[in-house]
């Protein structure tokens, strides 16, 4: 084992390989507050990559209802149990912007739990059986009621559920990659995308076992495992639509609810993805305690119980929700970039506009300015331009009935 730094955990942790970060990391932000669980993303992926024989059970992208849903069933509860040592807490008194923005995690990661239990493999895990991959939307829209007699009111509902959108996290320290005894799984230096080499894979299912997010899937027909490929041809700009520019993946681009923004985590503070994750800390990793440093980030749902959310997204939850409820001028502008273009945005610029609205939200003053936000592509060219106030189009009465 070597020691690597995991900034989600705010500390070093054990991992079988050295720390080696890609030039820029494939990453995405999902605003849970906006998801309507229409599964358009799920079908966009299905129809591109897993429509074939032997892939019937595969949903590289899926949307499940929390707390009861799970694909495969109860994947998160089962993995949380495996790392539970009775003291999986966070030490949040001291933080460092760069090294430990959420504080320090004091429990075990999947790697540390395996070493502690002397498992003689790299990470704890389990293989979900075929029946657990069935009914991928089991538990849909089923609410949990903490106080059944009470009406719900914000900020926290007592009767709640929310949707969680899931795909491979293209982790910085992938459990799947660590688990593979053949080194058939690799993380690309250029964009951090994690892939299973389909020639080297021998269907051992160690990745299925040790990915805590259960995103590698075994294909019985071809006897090897497959997983989300981050639509890498699009990321490489091979799709003619964006004329050579890196393009967002199928599941991102298809998002009807406009909850998704995909791009790269890099060092540019004016990269909208980097800004929302590293600078604003509005978007949080999913189950950071697993220790893989996952790269899909979530804006937590503001109505769900905080304890549940803290378990799921770490201790950054309270601050993120507060920020989301009363967005700052810059935050509002950056959030307007979600789903405005298919080409990946590498940088944004804000041109200030006039103040158009003012109110008080949960006792806090909120001001809205009609700023213009501009998104730039990899080549520095403008990709899009949008305003905070969405333009209103009034249809000519002549066309009232036409579609």
């Amino acid at each position, binding site marked *: *084992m070597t020691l690597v730094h995991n900034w989600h955990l705010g500390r070093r942790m054990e991992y079988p390989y050295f720390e080696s970060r890609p030039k820029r990391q494939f990453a995405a932000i999902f605003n849970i507050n906006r998801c309507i669980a229409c599964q358009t993303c799920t079908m966009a992926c299905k129809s591109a990559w897993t429509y074939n*024989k032997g892939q019937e059970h595969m949903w590289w992208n899926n949307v499940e209802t929390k707390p009861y849903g799970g694909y495969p069933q109860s994947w998160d509860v089962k993995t949380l149990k495996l790392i539970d040592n009775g003291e999986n807490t966070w030490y949040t008194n001291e933080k460092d912007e760069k090294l430990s923005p959420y504080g320090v995690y004091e429990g075990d990661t999947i790697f540390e739990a395996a070493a502690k239990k002397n498992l003689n493999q*790299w990470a704890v895990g389990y293989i979900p059986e075929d029946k657990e991959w069935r009914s991928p939307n089991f538990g849909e829209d089923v609410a949990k009621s903490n106080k059944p007699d009470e009406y719900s009111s914000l900020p926290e509902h007592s009767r709640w559920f929310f949707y969680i959108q899931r795909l491979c996290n293209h982790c910085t320290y992938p459990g799947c990659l660590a688990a593979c005894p053949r*080194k058939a799984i690799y993380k690309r230096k250029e964009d951090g995308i994690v892939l299973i080499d389909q020639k080297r894979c021998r269907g051992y299912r160690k990745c299925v076992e040790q990915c805590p997010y259960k995103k590698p899937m*075994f294909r019985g027909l071809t006897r090897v495992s497959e997983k989300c490929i981050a639509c890498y041809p699009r990321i490489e700009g091979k799709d003619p639509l964006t004329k050579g520019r890196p393009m967002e993946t199928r599941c991102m681009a298809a998002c009807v609810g406009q909850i998704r923004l995909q791009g790269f985590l890099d060092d540019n503070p004016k990269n909208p993805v980097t800004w929302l994750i590293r600078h604003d800390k509005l978007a949080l990793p999913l189950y950071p305690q697993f220790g893989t440093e996952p790269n899909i980030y979530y804006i937590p749902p503001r109505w769900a119980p905080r304890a549940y959310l803290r378990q799921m997204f770490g201790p950054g939850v309270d601050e993120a929700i507060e920020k989301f409820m009363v967005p700052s001028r810059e935050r509002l502008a950056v959030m307007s970039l979600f789903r405005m273009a298919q080409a990946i945005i590498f940088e944004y610029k804000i041109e200030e506009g006039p103040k158009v609205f003012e109110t008080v939200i949960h006792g806090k003053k909120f001001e809205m300015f009609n700023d213009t936000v501009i998104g730039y592509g990899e080549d520095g060219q403008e990709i899009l331009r949008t305003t905070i106030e969405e333009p209103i189009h009034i249809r000519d009465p002549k066309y009232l009935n036409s579609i």
Partner: protein
Amino acid sequence: MKNGISLFKYGASLLGIVFLSATIYAAEETAPGVKGMSEEEFTPTKEVLAVKYVQADKPYHMDVESLKDRFKDAKGVKVALQKQDKAFPNGGGSVSSAEVKAVHDGTTIYFQISWSDPTKNVRAIAVQEFRDAVALMFPLGAVEVTPAEHFSPRMGDREKPVNLWHWKADWEADLVAKGELEDVEAQYPNMHDDFNTNPYSAYYHRELITSVAVLSGGRAANNLLSQPGRGRTVEDLNAEGFGTLTTQDHQDVNGCSHYEDGTWTVIIYRSLITEDPHDVQFVPGGNSYFNMAVWNGEEKDRNGQKNISTQWHPITLERVAWQ
């Protein structure tokens, strides 16, 4: 290693300890997750597997029934097996021994391996299912295994390659299946009809569905495991240490099996000499070494999770008796 975990949580301030611990790892492990081997493991066993020359024509059916007679007078060796405990992931331990016999007829060499396994696992289509398997391993080239040589009996080593013959129970099932590959419907016969009682359903049109070409990375990349129509039950591979196992471009080995009363009998055969430089070559009158492993599918054995012998076993080939 275990103490390390709690100490290193606050990383940066404990650099000194980090360094110390790295030194300790190095003493225990030759590579991450790989423990060093004992001198004993570099010494071959005393017992020699004599490959008897038998004059016999090739039977019409290459099955255990037709081939078993030629092993009648061959003296077998009993190979002790144990859990694989050197490279991550460790595992195995459910099969404690196997018997190996070998004969040749001047052109082909036959190995017969038998071991007891109360459960027969011949399919690996469901995600939680693993197959029974057995493999023989030979050093590549003219090698003298001595303690000084340090030729690893566990998957060989860098610059010390091995040739492996891996028999898989599911490949045998594939061989006789339609299209020479057991389809997912072999495991899930009603997969498309569970909720569908209409025999003329528009939802599932078997012919239409099966007429769509299979989109598969494994097949596109020419992964032998994914291909239908391999025409064999044994895979011919090479390795140069843990994690380096690679399928050969040229497949030369085949085999057959029989399972009865909780015992597997597997016969693996190949011509004594091949043209492939990556293959072990057998010369009557000459010698070589073998080692082996058995996988118990019921115990979810696969890859390094296997029952292994930890030493090389010498092989001598009887000369051809010309008549």
